[in-house]
């Protein structure tokens, strides 16, 4: 064997060894004597939604750091929470691998995943292993409709959100001819379908339903096809990396219509990417505006000081962790089987809202707020739902 053929092998071994070192040193961070409890987190940390995934991870990390600083005692022992963060790449296949990895890592609970498309396949693995999962942001109806006792979410689902959006488009905005584009993910597709149902029920006509992917940047072809149908409102079911350039291309192609998105578009990144084309766009976000959240302002100040401006779901991650810890404290156990019943009937005052779950694990009385870009900023229009 020549040196050249051995070298890549050696390099690979070296890299593996380096990776292993990195892991074990973080494991030792816990002070001796404390009971180490691992909390798993999964979100896309690479790929084109990495900015939102990192935001989720930071929200989760902040909640765990807070809990560690408080020195929580469960079952007579001081608890040190440790974050095991995994990258699911927003990819359903990777999500199941990551889920299995977290299960093997003996985590006591999961905060994640970010996308509906990853949350749903992963939820089966968590359910099979009896591990509690709270998704901060998966909104697809299917997630909690599978009958898994372990699946919870701290955000209103797409049936509620799509309904509010469709009704608002047809009634309040008076849209008669509506075009819909979705990104064919579980989230985008689910939201678009609910939107269409509600819009049609309120007398609007769906003149076009086009598709793109969650990796595309060029939408001129589908937008031109939409233009031919002359709609007065375009709804996009998808995330901000697509919504931003899409708004720009709508303007460039001189489409004269209102642009509307779900929670995936309600980010500062959308405004940055669309620049002046963002003006006037509508989006919704389950929950009340940050300023009106019970602990919103305080959370934002602390979060921004520690990490970076909130992208989207960080407060929901923070709440998801806290509600999980609250259930552990009530049950006086970190065993998922023991604290699960407590979680199901909990009532916890979070920073986003008062968190109570219904029988399926959905958030009770989820409010939904509509926003519009005005002078380069998301401004709340009105909050619909019981949580106002």
């Amino acid at each position, binding site marked *: 064997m020549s040196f*050249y*053929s051995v*070298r*890549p092998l050696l390099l690979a071994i070296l890299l593996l060894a380096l990776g292993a070192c990195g892991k074990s040193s973080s494991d030792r961070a816990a002070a001796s004597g404390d009971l180490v409890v691992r909390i798993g987190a999964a979100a896309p*940390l*690479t*790929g*084109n939604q*990495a*900015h939102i*995934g*990192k935001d989720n991870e930071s929200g989760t990390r902040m909640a765990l750091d807070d809990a560690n600083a408080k020195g929580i005692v469960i079952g007579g022992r001081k608890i040190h929470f440790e974050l095991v963060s995994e990258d699911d790449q927003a990819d359903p296949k990777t999500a199941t691998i990551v889920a299995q990895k977290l299960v093997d890592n003996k985590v006591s609970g999961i905060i994640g995943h970010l996308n509906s498309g990853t949350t749903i396949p992963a939820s089966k693995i968590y359910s099979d292993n009896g591990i509690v999962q709270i998704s901060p942001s998966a909104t697809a109806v299917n997630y909690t409709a599978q009958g898994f006792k372990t699946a919870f979410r701290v955000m209103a689902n797409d049936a509620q959100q799509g309904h509010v959006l469709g009704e608002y488009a047809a009634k309040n905005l008076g849209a008669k001819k509506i075009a819909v584009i979705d990104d*064919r993910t579980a989230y985008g597709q689910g939201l678009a379908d609910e939107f269409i149902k509600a819009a049609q029920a309120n007398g609007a006509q769906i003149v*076009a*339903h*086009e*598709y*793109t*992917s969650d*990796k*595309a*940047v*060029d939408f*001129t*072809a*589908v937008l*031109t*096809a939409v*233009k*031919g149908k002359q709609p007065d409102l375009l709804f996009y079911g998808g995330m*901000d*990396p697509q919504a*931003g*350039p899409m708004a*720009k291309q709508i303007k*460039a*192609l*001189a489409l004269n219509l209102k642009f509307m998105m779900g929670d995936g578009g309600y980010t500062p*990144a959308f405004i*940055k*990417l*669309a*620049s002046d084309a963002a003006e006037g766009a509508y989006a919704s976000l389950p929950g009340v505006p940050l300023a009106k959240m019970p602990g919103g302002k305080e959370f934002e100040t602390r979060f921004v000081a520690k990490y970076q401006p909130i992208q989207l779901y960080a407060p929901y991650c923070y709440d998801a962790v806290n509600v999980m810890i609250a259930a552990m404290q009530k049950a006086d156990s970190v065993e998922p089987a023991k604290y699960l019943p407590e979680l199901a009937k909990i009532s916890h005052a979070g920073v986003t809202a008062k968190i109570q779950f219904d029988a399926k694990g959905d958030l009770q009385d989820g409010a939904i707020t509509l926003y519009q870009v005005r002078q380069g900023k998301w401004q709340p229009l009105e909050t619909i739902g019981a949580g106002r």
Partner: protein
Amino acid sequence: MEIFLQQIINGLVQGSVYALVALGYTMVYGILGLINFAHGEVVMVGAMLALSALTAMLGWGVPPLLALPISLMLAMAGCMALGYGIERIAYRPLRHAPRLAPLITAIGVSIVLQNLAMMVWGRQYHAFPQLISNQPHLIGGAIINDIQIVIFIMALAIMAGLMVVVHRTRLGRAMRAVAENQHAAQLMGVDINRVISITFMLGSALAAVAGLMVSANYGLAHYYMGFLLGLKAFTAAVLGGIGNLRGAMLGGLLLGLIESLGAGYIGDMTGGFMGSNYQDVFAFFVLIAVLVFRPSGLLGERLAERA
């Protein structure tokens, strides 16, 4: 009719973007027979470098029309250095290894570059400043803006420029000689290491131009932008006949047109049975058809033209 014309324009603009990137793939393949899968990432680095230089200069109050060419130069210089480095580190040691080995290092380089870029520029999307006006021009009811015209002309000009370099200069003759037979070229006194390095640097400089154009057109830059773009451009290069400069141009434009016409009309043509979600399927279907019936691509057969 307006809509049809608009779809043609959309396709040509998108196709020029593919063509710009495909030229880089095809040049390296033509000389080395190596598919440089890191090329998409070089495009990304070019866009990021240009963006960083641009924001810095605009911050110092340099007028935009001066800042744009300077940042393009800087990005090109940066990418040339990067291209040289990639070749030196990842490909040259493996030049006589089985063909699979450099392919694997190419994918490795691509992952390394992506992660380095993520560490340097962060995970967030960067908005690209609007420097060239996007004032729409009307052509028979269809809309095209300045930046799109620039992209189209730039792609044609670069292809023409490369043809001149390859066919009319001493360097080009050396390149063609290396493409034909490396050993023979070396025996005739061609410094093949130098020629290959220059090829990589040229290809990377093109990548920087492509990166800037893509970012300016879509108004965004991101550490992940090179991946899909690279894949599509690779498809375009294969479609046109990889290793052939005119083929890359043709393949790019064709792929753009197929995508935009496919996405625009497939829904209406099949009565809603298939929708624009088949956009990519359509493009790759054409690719498969070409590979089955004409494996060397549309223009790939003329070996003497290879470069």
